[in-house]
């Protein structure tokens, strides 16, 4: 819970966190090493100096470190695990549902455990997915369309097998589909980071109740993402990677944020730190203090009120995941005169 100077309480849901293992013992090949190096540079480049960790700590951090950074120091009430398997690079996977489930079992109220699927696993994967959903009571998945698998360099959400998995999500009540569209792996085919395939499935599964949260807002194709999201009411923007720019390049952050608010509005944006890429505390502190500079307001008629910030920081995710929000931190109810 974040408390403003006026004593107002803000419910915080961190929409994207990891408990990863990038230690050398878990690295299978040079791609794993390149992956960790790249992640570490994102962390170093965009974090305030006092939040930069040594590489060794970053490769593998402890449970107590994570609990402190998120829940003691970082204001977070609930954090959503978004697994990323990468078994072609890491022996035990980078950050799997099974690894995350250990913490979920220990702190059931602190975490939401999401799972993942890959249409290239076809029938066997479908059965395994169903099993995980039932075992862990899963409500959301994270899809990594650029993930390497054997000779394959990625897949598209419009692939026939992806349809079967979406149908399965509908059957099982897994309604929140988080799609990674952004760095780090840059897929081979330009179409794999094109957000066009999100457009197709968002339309197709709108009536079935699926929500599509595009992580990293489709960076580096923000322009296409905004355009698609404006037309699809069940498409949301996950602000991981976008938010830390608030420190390193505040003016660019403001510019991108203005676009997001213009095209999607404050009801369809979700805060996330992408922990341990970045730590939530400083992002939330800066976001709460953030105001649009005048030159941006001159060009875009947008606003970001305290109510908007509450939605982005927690209430939108709470709605998607049916979380109970303490009354004081909820939406303000207009009192009839």
């Amino acid at each position: 819970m974040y408390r403003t100077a006026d004593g107002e309480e803000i419910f915080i849901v961190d929409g994207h966190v990891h408990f990863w293992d990038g230690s050398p013992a878990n690295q299978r090949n040079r791609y794993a090493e390149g992956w960790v190096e790249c992640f570490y540079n994102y962390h170093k480049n965009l974090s305030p100096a006092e939040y930069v960790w040594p590489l060794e700590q970053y490769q593998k951090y402890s449970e107590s470190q994570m609990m402190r950074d998120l829940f003691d120091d970082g204001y977070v009430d609930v954090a959503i695990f978004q697994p990323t398997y990468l078994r072609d690079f890491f022996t035990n996977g980078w950050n799997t549902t099974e690894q995350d489930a250990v913490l979920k079992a220990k702190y059931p109220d602190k975490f939401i455990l999401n799972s993942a699927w890959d249409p290239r696993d076809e029938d066997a994967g479908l059965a395994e997915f169903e099993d995980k959903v039932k075992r862990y009571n899963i409500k959301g998945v994270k899809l990594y369309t650029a993930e390497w698998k054997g000779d394959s360099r990625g897949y598209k959400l419009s692939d026939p097998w992806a349809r079967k998995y979406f149908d399965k999500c509908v059957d099982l009540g897994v309604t929140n589909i988080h799609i990674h569209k952004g760095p780090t792996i840059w897929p081979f085919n330009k179409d794999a980071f094109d957000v066009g395939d999100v457009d197709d499935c968002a339309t197709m599964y709108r009536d079935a109740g699926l929500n599509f949260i595009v992580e990293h807002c489709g960076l580096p194709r923000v322009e296409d993402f905004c355009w698609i999201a404006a037309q699809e009411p069940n498409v949301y923007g996950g602000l991981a990677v976008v938010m830390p720019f608030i420190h390193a390049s505040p003016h660019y952050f403001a510019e991108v944020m203005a676009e997001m608010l213009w095209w999607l509005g404050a009801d369809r944006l979700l805060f996330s730190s992408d922990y341990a890429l970045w730590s939530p505390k400083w992002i939330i502190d800066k976001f709460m203090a953030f105001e649009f500079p005048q030159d941006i307001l001159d060009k875009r008629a947008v606003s970001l009120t305290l109510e908007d910030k509450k939605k982005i920081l927690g209430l939108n995710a709470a709605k998607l995941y049916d979380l109970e929000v303490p009354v004081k931190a909820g939406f303000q109810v207009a009192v009839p005169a």
Partner: protein
Amino acid sequence: MIQTAEAVAVSQQAVLAALGTVSDPELDESLVELGFLDSVRIEDEGCVEVVLRLPTFWCAPNFAYLMVFDAREVTLRVPGVRQVRVVLKDHMYSDEISTGISAGLPFDEVFAGQAEGEDVGELRALFHGKAFGMRQEQLARFLLDAGLTADEVVALRLEDVLDTSNATGLRLQIGGQARRLRGGAPLARTYLERRRRLGLDEHGGSRLITDPHGQTIAAQELSEYLQCGRRQRISMTFNAVMCKGLLETRYDLHGGR
């Protein structure tokens, strides 16, 4: 020393100037300005080695290929150059790209079996269009901020652009009168260059501000039309900030952002 007629000494400056014309297609900025040029070494007998570096190990192989390809092409055109080896360092496909391009291989052969149906020519054209949209939005916004009406902006023809040199600023003919606009010359030059790349009509009577296919834009639609260019500009500049920052972090540069 006796030199044969064709053995011209290669100038380092000429190579650097040539490389300065190569852009990152995704960011529409020169790779030299982005810091992607690691080193240039001129060897005997007109052999040049160009070393490039990128912000991450994972940077998109198709864009990396295009930059390395372009770097080789422009360097080969420098007087005296007979052979060019472009090395892309610290990349997941360093070997494939460096070896493939130095041998003059097309993209689908460099990545045989991996890049299904990828057409780098199409990709390049797509990004030329985006760069055009971004540069056009900057120029049109500048003109509107300088006090031109939407009617005046969409009515401008190529022949109304009288001068784009830095010395005089941007000189335009607006409603039969010449006007000088301070600060707009570089924007106009860049836009015209991106426009030329799309192959639009170069006749003096052609409209200056059109869509990427050369279709005119109605004054009342200009503002909405420019939204698209605005999105492209914000996306490209945001990516550029990210790439520059990552490059600085990766190679411990202290250029300051």
